[in-house]
């Protein structure tokens, strides 16, 4: 096998994800065709459902917010070459932190106090759930992939135990907490915009979206502008050289996992403080795992993560519309379509890398003899 020439960075960041997306959509189109529907109409419905119908953009961005946080949870650790599969559990435990603050502090304090404290609690709880596997990896050699998976199960078990026990709403039979009072609810963006006399349709989109954008910016600054970010990248790219350079490699790994966990934990601000207004069972519903595909597709870069999250958000929202509009396209088919995108953009992200690189490498060669003759 001839090794492929290296792929130019611009092609890796822009062209390759686009090709993956197109292939995924083409395969989905075939599935829709096999179901007897018109794929062109279907994609029109999806786009309208995700961006154009009143309130649909808000829904799309609400989903996007979740994906940004869980994508960052994978991306920060990935900079230190740590594979954090524990976003699901870290977000879940983050929800516990946000919920505890909202339940106990909200009845006696104003919103401007409760929300920041609850946000910090979400980040802190998530961080702890990332720090422990980070510690076990860095100082005890337990593989991060194994421990973060196990910590997802532990988180799930703890939350079931709490939500069906100590935290369950009194006089209720379903496993969730009591609803937060208003000062424990993250303000909705449409309420705020309408108060400023814009006319915006209602949607679950809340202030957490701005927090997610800030987190993306923070991620960029942390990794590429700070000394600790330099250390994280050094540990990720060459741990031996990092050790030689006097970097405390285990500590940096623990730190990166902590930041990862905090990002995952912040997902709870959107879902718990922003929308559910109570801690419910399984509110993470797979966003944590989708974060792996987001980070992979977004190449661990904030701009990439934003667009990957937007794509996934649009798929979630547009997919729901698809289910609504077509008799033959059921919820399961929508899940299948989403799965295809994850498959091609995430799991098979580099499938077209080598052919694309060969194609690009061949282009300038063709012009060479012409130059020589001239």
């Amino acid at each position, binding site marked *: 096998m001839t090794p492929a020439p290296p792929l130019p960075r611009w092609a890796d960041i822009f062209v390759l994800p686009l090709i993956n997306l197109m292939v995924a959509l083409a395969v989905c189109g075939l599935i829709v065709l096999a179901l007897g529907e018109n794929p062109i109409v279907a994609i029109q419905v999806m786009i309208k459902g995700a961006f154009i119908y009143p309130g649909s953009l808000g829904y799309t961005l609400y989903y996007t917010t979740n994906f940004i946080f869980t994508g960052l949870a994978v991306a920060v650790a990935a900079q230190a070459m740590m594979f954090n599969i524990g976003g699901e559990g870290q977000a879940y435990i983050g929800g516990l932190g946000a919920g505890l603050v909202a339940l106990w502090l909200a009845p006696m304090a104003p919103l401007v106090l409760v929300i920041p404290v609850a946000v910090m609690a979400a980040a802190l709880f998530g961080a702890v759930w990332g720090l422990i596997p980070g510690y076990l990896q860095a100082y005890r050699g337990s593989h991060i992939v194994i421990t973060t998976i196990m910590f997802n199960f532990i988180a799930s078990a703890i939350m079931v135990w709490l939500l069906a026990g100590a935290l369950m709403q009194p006089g209720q039979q379903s496993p969730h907490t009591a609803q937060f009072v208003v000062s424990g609810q993250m303000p909705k963006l449409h309420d705020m915009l309408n108060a400023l006399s814009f006319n915006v349709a209602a949607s679950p989109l809340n202030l957490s979206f701005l927090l997610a954008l800030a987190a993306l910016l923070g991620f960029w600054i942390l990794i590429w502008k700070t*000394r600790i970010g*330099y250390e994280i990248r*050094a540990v990720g*790219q060459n741990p031996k*050289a990092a050790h*030689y350079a*006097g970097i*405390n490699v285990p500590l940096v790994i623990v730190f990166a996992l902590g930041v990862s966990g905090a990002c995952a934990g912040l997902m709870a601000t959107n879902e718990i403080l922003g929308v559910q207004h109570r801690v419910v069972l399984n509110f993470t519903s797979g966003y944590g795992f989708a974060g792996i595909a987001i980070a992979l597709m977004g190449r661990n870069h904030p701009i990439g993560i934003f667009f990957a999250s937007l794509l996934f958000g649009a798929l979630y929202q547009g997919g729901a519309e698809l289910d609504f509009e077509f008799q033959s396209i059921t919820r399961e088919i929508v899940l299948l379509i989403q799965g295809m995108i994850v498959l091609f953009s995430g799991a098979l992200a580099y499938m077209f890398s080598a052919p694309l690189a060969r194609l690009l490498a061949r282009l300038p060669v063709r012009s060479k*003899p012409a130059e020589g003759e001239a």
Partner: protein
Amino acid sequence: MQTDKINPAPAIELIDICKSFGPVQANRGVTLRVEAGTIHGIVGENGAGKSTLMNILYGLYQADSGEMHVAGEQVSLRSSADAISLGIGMVHQHFMLVSNMTVLENVMLGSEGGSLLRAGKCETLNTLQQLADDYGMEVDPDAVIADLPVGIRQRVEIIKAIKGGARILILDEPTGVLTPGEADKLFEVLKALKHNGVTVLLITHKLDEIMAITDAVSVMRHGEVVGHRHTVQTSPAELARLMVGRDVLLSVDRGQASPGEVLLGVTGLACTSSRGRQVLSDISFDVRAGEIFGIAGVSGNGQTELLEVIAGMRKFEQGSVSLLGETITASAPKTPAQIRDMRIAHIPEDRHQFGLILSFDAKGNAILGYHRSADYGSGYFLDEAAVAAHCNKLMSDHDVRPGNPALLARNFSGGNQQKLVIARETDTDPKILIVGQPTRGVDVGAIEFIHKQLLALRDAGCAILLVSAELDEIIGLSDRIMVMNGGRQMGILDSADAGRDRLGTMMAGIAQAVPS
């Protein structure tokens, strides 16, 4: 024309080969003719395009333009499989062996001969015996690669290539990892191969090897072949001049040292590896300000571990290290960061694994280890402008080419990578400098530059601990020399008393010199 009549078809003929990587022209119109059944040397500085040319010849890269003839026929290689089928074999600088398999298993890899191994094993055993008889390449077929010394591993690589029917053998820097003795054995094997009609292409930096073993030599500079010579008609000085484009001092001109107080002391040091092997035992020596203390020894006899202990990178069990008057023991260790803060610099033996982060750009590497310094930012933030300015200064002061701070470290040639590491470590005006293999894989021009820098630092009062596998380098630079074997010190000599032979026998662990 006479040789043409004897060997009408040269083994390899390259005509006007060009190859570019983006804006970099690695090969510019290279024309090369290698007669069959000769040993042909290719010398050139790092980044001169030797490796690119060999990779084209081995089918790993495709030339942008130009013709290639093998045994008189024009060929176009799309992959290494094409090269192998044409009888071209390559022994890479970094071996391609499965280290937890035996020699036999490695050699039969790819020719197992069916779903059961028995038949293939017998056949391979016969081949191994045959090669041992023909070329003196004896190896124990049942030895596990990981347990074998480097020289024998390399022999297994050669056997793999020859067994595949190679008539043309390319060796990329084959002696870089060998002891002088092992290198001599390699040369015997190469000569035996030559007598059996195998054509050998030898890429090397070492001019004495070219002179000792090759029949003809081609010199490359900046992607071009700048000269072909019959070895008997040339001299190392001429080759060096061709390589660098100017006159080069091949031996260092060393002034008298004026040693001062002891800055670095090691007493009764002992250390075991993570696998529990004793890698250092009872090491004691002092290094004074203004002297170069050399450590000679075959690679892997504890020198690496000794440097790592002193740099704070490795834990040790017994003894103590005294740095600028501060004592470090197993119970009171210091981290690499603390040691670097004491203005103790460390040029590691392996720049790819330790000295550099190859996927970082030059400016990212220029502050590696010093990234916490107030010079390169304030508080938690790095000041990119200051970092770039620092990198520019290092690159111009130490002649690192190309002088582009944004270029990834992996895209520099080996010599320039090493210059960048040395620039970074010496720029702080260190009081103690720990150096491992300062010129490994570095071209002649850069070697001269690096040696001058080390001597200038010595004369400025720095205590330098130098580890090198190059005996000539140790002898040429050091004021005193300690020889190590099996993790023990065989003795300390003044460099005036240390001849090659005496050091060689001590390196082999035979003679125990009286410590001076």
